[in-house]
């Protein structure tokens, strides 16, 4: 039997001051990120903000500073440029200005074709999204987050009890907010795929939480003595190896996606990868302590 983690006796409940403080900092960063998104200061993807995104492949390397100069001269000073080294790929993203529904992809492609006549350009993809659609997609995304929170609380309340449901939902929201904060700090683009990653991680993080909760419930029934904190400690230690190994397998596939999945999925894969780590952390350090704090230390059996 290979065991990475053997008979651990970590006092998870004892260090909850520190982990809560750490989570608190994560939350603050996250909420700051959310506020910045609302103020329009975050790197929102053009599918949420509205605007134009063009991916071009040049035959030869293209000097970025000349492209920048050209676009600035044509009134697209705010456009962001991203090159993919070694592949001669250029991604131009121009956020929509206010309510203007103007589509600028043709203009930009023509500008570049005119500027680099001996460097043929293949248009790999174009996405132009009017601000109205961006707004609709934004509100759909928020609605999806809200509905999933409710559905999760209801399911866990049914399978465990209300307090477990709420604790799991808090842990899930911890992950969603923390991931948003980390992405904001990294300056990574937040688009619809990022929202998808948020929801996926929310669902996945619960998987780990449920495993821990299952064991806590079982141990409350079996042990009958000691405090809830002690029982939680025992339970978390008992399932620690599976919590970590289940996360490792998903983490591995996320890494494969991140390194080999290509540029279109890169940010999505990054969000999933970070999310798996945060989700595993929260199932161990956030969800269970909340149950203990809320339920009190008495070993009341959990109804099933």
């Amino acid at each position, binding site marked *: 039997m290979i065991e990475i983690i053997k008979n651990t006796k970590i006092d998870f409940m004892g260090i909850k001051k520190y982990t809560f403080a750490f989570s608190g900092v994560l939350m603050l960063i996250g909420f700051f990120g959310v506020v910045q998104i609302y103020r329009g200061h975050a790197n929102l993807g053009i599918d949420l903000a509205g605007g134009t995104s063009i991916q071009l492949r040049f035959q030869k390397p293209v000097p970025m500073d000349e492209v920048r100069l050209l676009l600035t001269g044509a009134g697209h000073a705010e456009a962001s440029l991203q090159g993919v080294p070694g592949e001669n790929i250029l991604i131009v993203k121009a956020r929509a200005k206010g309510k203007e529904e103007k589509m600028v992809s043709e203009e930009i492609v023509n500008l570049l074709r005119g500027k680099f006549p001996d460097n043929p350009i*293949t248009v790999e993809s174009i996405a*132009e999204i*009017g601000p109205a659609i961006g707004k609709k997609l934004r509100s759909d995304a928020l609605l999806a987050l809200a509905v999933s929170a409710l559905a999760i609380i209801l399911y866990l309340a049914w399978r465990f009890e209300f307090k477990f449901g709420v604790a799991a939902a808090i842990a899930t929201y911890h992950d969603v907010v923390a991931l948003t904060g980390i992405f904001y700090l990294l300056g990574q683009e937040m688009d619809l795929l990022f929202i998808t990653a948020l*929801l996926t991680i929310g669902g996945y993080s*619960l998987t780990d939480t449920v495993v821990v909760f299952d064991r806590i419930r079982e141990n409350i029934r079996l042990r009958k003595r000691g405090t809830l904190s002690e029982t939680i400690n025992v339970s978390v230690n008992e399932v620690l190896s599976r919590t970590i190994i289940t996360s490792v397998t*998903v983490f591995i596939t996320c890494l494969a*996606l991140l390194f080999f999945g290509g540029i279109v999925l890169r940010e999505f894969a990054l969000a*999933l990868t970070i999310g798996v780590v945060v989700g595993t952390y929260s199932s161990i350090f956030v969800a269970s302590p909340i149950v203990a704090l809320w339920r009190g230390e008495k070993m009341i059996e959990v109804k099933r």
Partner: protein
Amino acid sequence: MWKSIRLRITLIAVLTILSIAVVLPSLTDNLPAAWQKKTPKIHLGLDLQGGVFLRLAVEIDKAIESTALRYADESRAACRAKGIPVLGWQREGTDGFSLKLPPGDFAGKALSLLKEEMGIIDFALGDVKADGATVVGRMRPAEVQLIRANAVTQGVDTIRNRIDPEGVREAQVIPEGDDRIVIQLPGFKEQQRAIALVSQVALLEFKLVDEGVSVEEAMKGNIPEDAQLLFQITNDRQTGKMTKNPMVVKKRALLTGDKIKSAKVNFESRQGGAAVSVSFDAQGTKIFDRITAENVKRRLAIILDGNIKSAPVIQERISGGEAQITGSFTAEEASDLAVVLRSGALIAPVKVIQNVTVGPSLGQDSIQKGIRAGVIGALLVVLFMAFYYRLSGLVADFALIFNILFLLAGMALLEATLTLPGIAGVILAIGMAVDSNVLIFERIREEIRAKKPVRAAIDAGYDKAFWTVVDSHVTTLITALILFQFGTGPIKGFAVTLSMGVAINLFTALVCTKVVFDYINAKRPMQALSI
């Protein structure tokens, strides 16, 4: 015991054979035609096969407005015909207009005249002041409602007619909500052309050129009320230079595109280049005959969506019901124009509010990279499981292969659309698939540590981990279903593959692995378990 094992193995074998039969046509083209044709296939999303996605906003209010303006014109003409002078007019909201009449009893006369002649409009007396009075006309709510209801359906039908000649396989034109149209053209490469085909209003009008007004005066704003200033825009083929030639035409359209019976490209135009010949229906032929007879030697402007295409001099009366539109078209532009004219004009103008175009090379690239990431991810997981759980890990790996196979079969059966995020969903599902086995194996290890015999430990492990596995699957399923509900195309694809992968995993991780352990035990009870 054996009976149950045989039953389960048979079930898995049948499912496997069926799955392979269903999946193969999606993977290769070298199969007998009957097999290839009869099985449902996994579709590739626009992001993988390339193509154009457009979302249009139908500007219904503009359609109502332009109808109201047409009624305003007609009302004015009716008044003038009976000698009632109209001083001016203006819009009243989107569905109404008001005419300004001189003081005296003109307003009253106009009101009774209009009520009689323009029965489909509600007229009422507006402000009465010393310098005149107004008559307000408003479209009936029923008519406004009809335009509202028709604008989107007519748009969808018209756009479909325009796209059909392109022969795009699996092209979709569908209404969305009350005022949107979504168009998907898989494999279509020319984005600008797609936008032009789809969003052109294609309102064709024939109006007389007003020779009595000088263009210079008109440019300064001195223009009679029944005339308007339009431009003829020509692009020089060689230099690419655009010239705008202003022209004054009568406001009233003598004939419009709805009287067209057919339109086709004609390469024998006198100016060289392609032209479009239109032939009118019976009524249109009669009108065109009258127009040309009454206006020989005058110029007739042919106007498309407010731009003058040409303004030839009428040389003689034309009774054949045919006209030719010239205007420096390329062959492709001319053929598109013919298609658009045949399909008719849109009632309401449309605006492209979302346009996603993926080139075929990027789609290919995405598929390759997606498959590469999937294979590498799956291999790493397989190796990890075999390393950490030894023989039992291999059993889990074996179940993983079934999981992927059944997932592909399920997608083919549902004719689901595979998108790039969908591939990511498959990869993520691979990582999650072995999780169920991890939970079970860890439980078995606990039982073995508690000194239970191997067989009892395995049974207890599966038994006790069951609800944990179900719970953990349901939570992922909940979010995947919500993603499916709220997500757009590519993200729906992610929700589909992830949720199907996770659901199928319940079967493969619980049934497919258990039967292996049961089989070994039935052959020769295990003394030790490699886990």
